[in-house]
């Protein structure tokens, strides 16, 4: 049976990993390529590279890094950040990305997901949504979480999947950074309405959070996190062994 995926996310700015990294074996690694290699040799099932650069110069550095990573890491790579039009898909796919994740770009350009899915296939298009509770409703936020779009999140995700998004990253802004566990309420609501893979993001603080995630919501396919992996608070091989012991099917 298919295994649950564990996915580290690397935020890259001007060619460096932004969130600090401090492994015992690998102190202060700022090179995204070295970090990608480390993760792929240590149990990561997939990697997400998030380009948080704004300048054209930084973007060039990013694609250079992506090319280097894709030449040395042979697991699926998803790329997000600054994806606004079809040419952005082309730019990162030609550098070795397997999937492209869209967030604000899909809100600004409502035709983007459909066009990209038609051209590159559903499996290539990932909708990533930053979601926060506003007056008891789930709202989609744009621009890195700075702008409330007023869009109802569950309807938005349903619509994106209907247009061809082959995977959904649900990033809960309410649980992100708190390290108190994933947003199970939100994730359940999303899993109830879509039949494509759902990736949980935001809130992982300890191994038990992943165990709870997969046990309480069997329809969730993957757990994504950044700092808990970067700071070595959770080592992926240990996490996967624990998951296996708890009866969650993972790739060891």
């Amino acid at each position, binding site marked *: 049976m298919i295994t649950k995926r564990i996915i580290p996310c690397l935020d890259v700015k001007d060619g460096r990993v932004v969130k600090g990294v401090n492994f015992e074996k690998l102190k202060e690694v700022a090179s995204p390529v070295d970090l990608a290699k480390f993760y792929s040799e240590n149990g990561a099932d997939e990697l997400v590279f998030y380009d948080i650069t704004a300048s054209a110069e930084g973007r060039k550095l990013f694609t250079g890094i992506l090319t280097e990573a894709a*030449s040395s890491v042979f697991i699926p790579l998803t790329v997000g950040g600054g994806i606004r039009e079809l040419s952005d898909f082309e730019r990162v796919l030609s550098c070795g990305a397997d999937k492209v994740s869209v967030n604000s770009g899909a809100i600004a350009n409502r035709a983007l997901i459909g066009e990209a899915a038609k051209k590159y296939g559903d499996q290539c298009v990932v909708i990533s949504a930053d979601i926060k509770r506003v007056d008891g409703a789930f709202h989609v936020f744009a621009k890195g979480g700075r702008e409330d779009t007023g869009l109802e999140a569950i309807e938005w995700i349903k619509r994106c999947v209907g247009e061809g998004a082959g995977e959904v990253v649900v990033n809960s802004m309410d649980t992100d950074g708190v390290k108190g566990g994933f947003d199970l309420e939100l994730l359940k609501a999303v899993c109830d309405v879509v039949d494509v893979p759902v990736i949980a993001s935001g809130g992982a603080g300890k191994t038990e959070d992943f165990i709870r995630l997969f046990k309480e919501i069997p329809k969730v*396919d993957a757990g994504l996190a950044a700092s808990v992996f970067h700071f070595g608070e959770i080592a992926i091989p240990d996490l996967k062994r624990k998951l296996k012991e708890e009866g969650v099917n993972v790739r060891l």
Partner: protein
Amino acid sequence: MIAIIDYGVGNLFSVCASLKKIGAEAIVTSDRREIENADKIILPGVGAFSDAMKKLKQTGLDEVIKAEANKGKYIMGICLGMQMLFEKSYEYGEHEGLGLLKGSIVPMKGVIDERLKIPHIGWNALRFEKPHFLFKYIKEGDCVYFVHSYYATDCKDSLIATTEYDQYLTAAVAKGNVLGCQFHPEKSGEVGLAMLKAFCEAV
């Protein structure tokens, strides 16, 4: 030299990079002579079956591939490339494939448990159905990376590995010099690289 066939379908970056990684010489090409001169052929592919076959036919590469395979040259199809090695596919209609292997491509929908997601995306374990040199450096139960909604059936004579997704679905096939993987060896970490290495070493 391994010729990776370029017919305008799919991303060849990783296939090429993975072969380089294991020290194999590879070239991405749509040139008939280069394909004829290569020791082995890899046929990649993503997307829809009929589009991909149409493109192969338009470029005349379908005949080149068939001729080379019939001469006994090793050829490996990956993902949609594997599916095209078969006689036909029932993806949106009925379409003729290269016919190098017996069997056909059918949808998972209606066959597997309806609660399971389609496409079958992610890492899943291999079950060996027959010993094969492709498995030289790996073991049964090793996981590889899949992305597909259709699978090969009625292919008993070439089936060498399956994977369980409610049903045991075709994961790898081989008959003589014609081989195929439904999964992506170029995206399956060390296990995938080890299988590519075994393919490259075949004589």
